[in-house]
């Protein structure tokens, strides 16, 4: 038996191309790319580079959502892990700093996972706890200040490059490949989809749904921790009040634009990342356009609505019916 490909990705790819074309119209130098200090430099690179944190978040978020869950705490986890990385960077080596930041990310995920899978608390409430408390924890770590660092090793994660590719983009690409291998290279993806569709049936069928759910929340928090380290490395400091603020909503939006239903089941990691790039391409386009900032949110809302309408099966059915009637 062959499985039907759940998502073609055609609407998303078209949406991205249209937005990029609009960006090119408002800003003719949009596709110009040159090397600056050994790093690729251009608006298109900005889209990838600035989109990296949300793309990372969406990689973890799509798995959580496929399990019919949701993780509201990723923005706060970013703030915590960024604060830890920035606080340790100048006194410890990079491996220690990274291990501490990612280790705390892992603990955050474990907390969420145990609340959801262990205690059976609804995901939106369970992760809301860490969303609220997490930012407070981050503020405690930074004592309410912006903690800056000068360590070039950590700064490289935000501003460095591998053969011209900005480090955040490279890290996100590696994370995407690893996740794809883990999830789609094994039966794990199928088990996640089955559990998201019907948890009870999946348990009865012998899937360790509880352990798997915890593992997925841990993975989501790990992605958020990495995104937090990137965000801190980017500005050479940890801003506990603002790092990752509202990014959980952007990540959820990216997943939804990528065609994954909030009711769980079938999912696509690549399309979620594509969704993150669509959001960022739009943000960069708005910044390049020179419109007054009052328009930012309205433009964003209109574009998101258009992308979601294109995907709506009801609307597709309606337009097909209209075409039949016209004939």
């Amino acid at each position, binding site marked *: 038996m062959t499985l039907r490909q759940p998502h073609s990705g055609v609407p998303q790819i078209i949406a991205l191309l249209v937005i990029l074309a609009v960006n090119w119209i408002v*800003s003719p130098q949009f596709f110009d790319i040159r090397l600056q200090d050994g790093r690729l430099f251009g608006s298109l690179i*900005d889209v990838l580079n600035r989109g990296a944190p949300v793309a990372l978040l969406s990689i973890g978020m799509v798995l959580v959502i496929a399990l019919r869950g949701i993780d509201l705490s990723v923005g706060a986890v970013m703030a915590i892990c960024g604060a830890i990385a920035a606080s340790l960077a100048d006194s410890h080596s990079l491996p220690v700093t990274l291990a501490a930041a990612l280790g705390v990310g892992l603990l955050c995920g474990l907390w969420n996972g145990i609340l959801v899978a262990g205690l059976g608390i609804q995901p939106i409430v369970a992760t809301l706890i860490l969303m609220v408390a997490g930012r407070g924890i981050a503020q405690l770590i930074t004592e309410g200040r912006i903690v800056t660092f000068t360590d070039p090793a950590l700064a490289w994660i935000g501003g460095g490059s591998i053969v011209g590719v900005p480090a955040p983009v490279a890290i996100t690409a590696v994370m995407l490949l690893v996740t794809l291998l883990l999830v789609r290279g094994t039966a794990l993806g199928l088990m996640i989809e089955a559990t998201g569709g019907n948890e009870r049936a999946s348990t009865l069928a012998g899937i360790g749904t509880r352990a798997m759910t915890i593992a997925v929340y841990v993975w989501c928090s790990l992605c958020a921790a990495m995104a937090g380290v990137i965000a801190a490395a980017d500005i050479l400091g940890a801003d506990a009040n603002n790092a990752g603020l509202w990014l959980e909503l952007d990540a959820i939006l990216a997943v939804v634009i990528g065609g994954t239903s909030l009711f769980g089941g079938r999912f696509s990691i690549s399309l979620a990342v594509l969704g993150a790039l669509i959001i960022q391409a739009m943000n960069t386009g708005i910044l*390049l356009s020179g419109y007054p900032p009052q328009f930012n949110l309205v433009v964003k809302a209109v574009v998101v609505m258009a992308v979601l309408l294109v995907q709506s099966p009801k609307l597709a059915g309606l337009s097909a019916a209209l075409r039949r009637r016209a004939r």
Partner: protein
Amino acid sequence: MTARTPVSSCLTALGLSLAMMALPVAAVAADLTVGFSQIGSESGWRAAETTVSKAEAEKRGITLKIADAQQKQENQIKAIRAFVAQGVDAIFLAPVVSTGWETVLAEAKEAEIPVVLLDRDIDPSGKDLYLTAVTSDSVHEGRVAGEWLVKTVGDKTCNVVELQGTVGASVATNRKKGFEEGIAGHANVTIVRSQTGEFTRAKGKEVMESFIKAEGGGKSICAVYAHNDDMMVGAIQAMKEAGLKPGSEILTVSIDAVPDIFKAMAAGEANATVELTPNMAGPAFDAVVAFKENGTVPPKWIQTESKLYTSADDPMKVYESKKDLGY
């Protein structure tokens, strides 16, 4: 950044307040107890204000009781009632919102305890319920920044890009308005691009990246104006990463005077900043002492100085003096 509303037009207040500051601090100050209802730790500036208030009280031998309201008006009202019950000599209030103070301030007035507003004003209807308000004029801050730029560029044509604060925040609107007033009448200085950087480093950096691309690699940008220093710190990074030289090729002027901008100034990467002084309590103490001792009624508005700092002001020394204030 902190949001505050300037008091109506009353420019003579500055002169009067300066005259009052010159008054000798008398022995009566030693016996004074002042209750201070502080908003809470919303920003580094707020923390610095608290630190400076404590130091200013100590300098005058005044006992200062600080109540942290954690951003809640009801906590502030409770604190004021407690101060009234304790029979303090004066109450300082940094109001978290501008309305809803009538009842509690009337209670303080009935107990004949003078109230001084710090940093933010309240609704005009409550004008006779407090002794005076010590605030900065954010329109004036923008004007000082604009006038510095006009003076520095002389007759040269200068394209300015502006990083605005959060859309709708009164302090952003005012700093924009003030800057436009400052450069008015000088056709050679024009704002070519203006976008919101939401008062944060990360956004300031992202917006500056797009400005650089939209303005032909940044070659046509002559100066950057940011509504706060944090956005400027981000913008400076963006310029450096694009191979530009902030501080020499591109002039920078921002507002707040937080420690990190002085570090950039010392490194030759920033040019000027306008101080939003954290010392609001000093003039307030002087006003209270004069009122208690001689019955001198201060003007309704004491405007704090918006001091301009440039790289000529020994930035490293200013940095050292500010870095431990809690910014």
